């Protein structure tokens, strides 16, 4: 890890100066693959399956972008990053975008100079404890040993939460979710804390998920979304509108099953037509062809389909749509209009 940080620093320092400069789109096209930073493995969000093929909710965003830009959802090079290495990887140009449970915060946006292009999961930080401890509220965790991933907002929220409630704890910093899981299961920490979605995904991978409870307190706002580097607005637009295309597709009823048919000829909904390129020239405006959104949606379906398939209630992870429902369904998912 030391090496990565150092190399990263050097890279930022410009030894390979220029590689990270503007025109990411041209680079991606010339390379023929999209380099996408993901987690080191979090079932449901990003993890390789038995054949080594990456899949998950965050992975789907990468694939949609690859499909829109390169026409091929498999032309993605997935780069596993830890909470600590992700920003260096993006800043140095090692990856073109990050889709890695990353919280949109003020300082990351302004000081670290990244551009969050949207939110693909509205989350908040929670705590998981073994049922046997008999703890029912995070406020009872006085004196507990808590495992946290370093380099995350989790770490800072945790310090704030315990300070605000005037209770003490012992942090055990770890680098990856897998490590945290191992430590937690070995009893080296009493509680594990991270984004509630991550907790659900982690718990789903346990042998006896029922032995562990996720406490009711959600101690923070964690809008998770894909991000790119500051300074290349064209590229940022492509990633932003690809995500919006997935969200709008759900709102407009475009699915993986009917997208081909709807895109073959203009429908009677002008917005669908603009989205799928049978009307207007939105694709051209972001430097792509007319079919870009159709390809992105065809990969794994619209936002709702991706949610259900990867992390939804019928998966082991079992997350409800909650805040992440469309605004028309009582959620806060709201894509700006395609026009």
């Amino acid at each position, binding site marked *: 890890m030391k090496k990565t940080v*150092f190399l990263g*620093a050097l890279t*930022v*320092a410009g030894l390979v100066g220029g590689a990270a400069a503007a025109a990411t789109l041209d680079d991606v096209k010339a390379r023929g693959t999209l380099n996408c930073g993901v987690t080191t493995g979090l079932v449901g969000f990003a993890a390789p399956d038995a054949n080594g093929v990456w899949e998950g909710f965050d992975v789907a965003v990468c694939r949609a972008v690859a499909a829109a830009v390169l026409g091929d959802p498999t032309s993605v090079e997935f780069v596993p990053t830890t909470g600590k290495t992700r920003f260096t990887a993006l800043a140095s140009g090692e990856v073109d975008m990050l889709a890695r449970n990353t919280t949109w915060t003020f300082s990351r946006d302004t000081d670290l100079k990244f551009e969050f292009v949207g939110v693909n999961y509205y989350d908040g930080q929670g705590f998981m404890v073994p049922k046997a401890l008999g703890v029912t509220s995070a406020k009872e965790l006085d*004196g507990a*040993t808590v495992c946290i991933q*370093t*380099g995350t907002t989790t*770490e800072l929220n945790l310090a704030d939460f315990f300070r605000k409630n005037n209770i003490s704890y012992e942090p055990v*910093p770890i680098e990856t979710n897998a490590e945290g899981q191992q430590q937690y299961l070995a009893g080296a920490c009493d509680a594990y804390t991270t984004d509630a979605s991550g907790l659900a995904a982690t718990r789903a991978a346990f042998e006896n998920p029922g032995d562990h409870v996720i406490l009711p307190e959600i101690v923070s706002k964690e809008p998770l979304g894909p991000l790119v580097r500051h300074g290349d607005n064209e590229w940022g637009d492509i990633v932003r509108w690809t995500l919006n295309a997935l969200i709008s597709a759900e709102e407009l009823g475009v699915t993986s099953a009917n997208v081909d048919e709807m895109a073959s000829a203009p429908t009677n909904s002008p917005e669908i037509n603009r989205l799928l390129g049978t009307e207007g020239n939105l694709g051209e405006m972001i430097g792509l062809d007319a079919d870009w959104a159709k390809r992105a949606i065809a990969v794994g379906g619209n936002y709702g389909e991706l949610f259900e398939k990867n992390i939804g209630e019928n998966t082991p992870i079992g997350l409800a749509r909650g805040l992440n429902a469309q605004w028309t369904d009582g959620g806060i998912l709201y894509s700006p209009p395609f026009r």
Partner: protein
Amino acid sequence: MTTMTDPPQASFRLSQLIYDTRYRSYTFQFIALMLLVALMAYLGANLVTNLAEQGQNIAFGFLAEPSGYDINQRPIEYDSQSSHLRASVVGVLNTLIVAFLGCLTATIFGVIAGVLRLSPNWLVRKLMAGYVEAFRNVPVLIWILIIFTIMTAVLPSPSAFRGDNSESSMLFGSFAFTNRGIYAPLPIWEPGSQVVVLTFLASIAGAIYYRRYATKLLYDTGKLLPMGWPSLVILFVPTILIFFVMGRPISLDYPALETFNFQGGMQIRGSLIALWFALAIYTGAFIAENVRAGILAVNRGQTEAAASLGLRPGRIMNLVILPQALRVIIPPVISQYLNLTKNSSLAIAVGYMDVTGTLGGITLNQTGRAIECVLLLMLFYLTISLAISAVMNLYNNSIALKER
């Protein structure tokens, strides 16, 4: 007949810089230096422009901002409202703690293993060879992880100590070995305890003085005073007396099991133990080889001469061989100490918060000030390495062969 030749003209031609052997090496050194400076300047300029392009600068103001994170092992007062600078200092102290403990233990392991590798006993010799080969040839990161994993997997968690017929119980009712570390009683220094401590220090001085006196008496008059028990008496009796006279000002704070963890007493965290032990045992294997080389470098004749004077093997080693071997041993051991200190930066693998974990880890990550943090880190490791070398070189000079 005398021929007069003019002394060579002192005129200097430029070509001499290359063709004249007197100047040639300077010329090339100068060119090399210029190239190096140019390279550095190029890299530096590159850094500055690229940073400017990204709208960033090099500034250390972030060090004064509140860090926002907590650290488990805090040798000094620290909380999440303290500054990044303070977090770095905590990290530095943690690095120094593990480096100090590691060097000390590695030296002990190394000397024992190095001496025993030359033992006449076949089994002992082979065992030590096995130790050296096994530990020297596996990366230290692996050892850190192995030891840490074994600790977390094998030792019970604190909750196993709960209840009347619990699975685990504390050693002597005061030590608990858990997968989170070792909990031990902590001495509490109440007013008056200074007197006890001072008495003890004075007793140590007294014991040393007594032994000097006895040796002198032996050499001067041949009268043999007992050494063992009087030293012990001088060492402990006054201290114990004063301890009771002062009304037992030193008490022990025992660790006790609370809701989640043992509280009170002293906690030596599992991460520290794993890191310390792994570094010590790994570096110890290298030091063992240095020790062995040093001993082998002392002429066999020395051993034989000492033996013929009637010295016992233990004394030969302590009085004749080791003092001479030390001159060969110390220089390479310095570099082992440096290696150990630098290897301690692997601490984050087990969640030990050394300076790489705080300044080079969380601070770097939360502030995005990669260049500043890495520069500071380099500066720190450089300083500490130079300091270790300086101290050890002083020691080396003090034991070096005095040429008169």
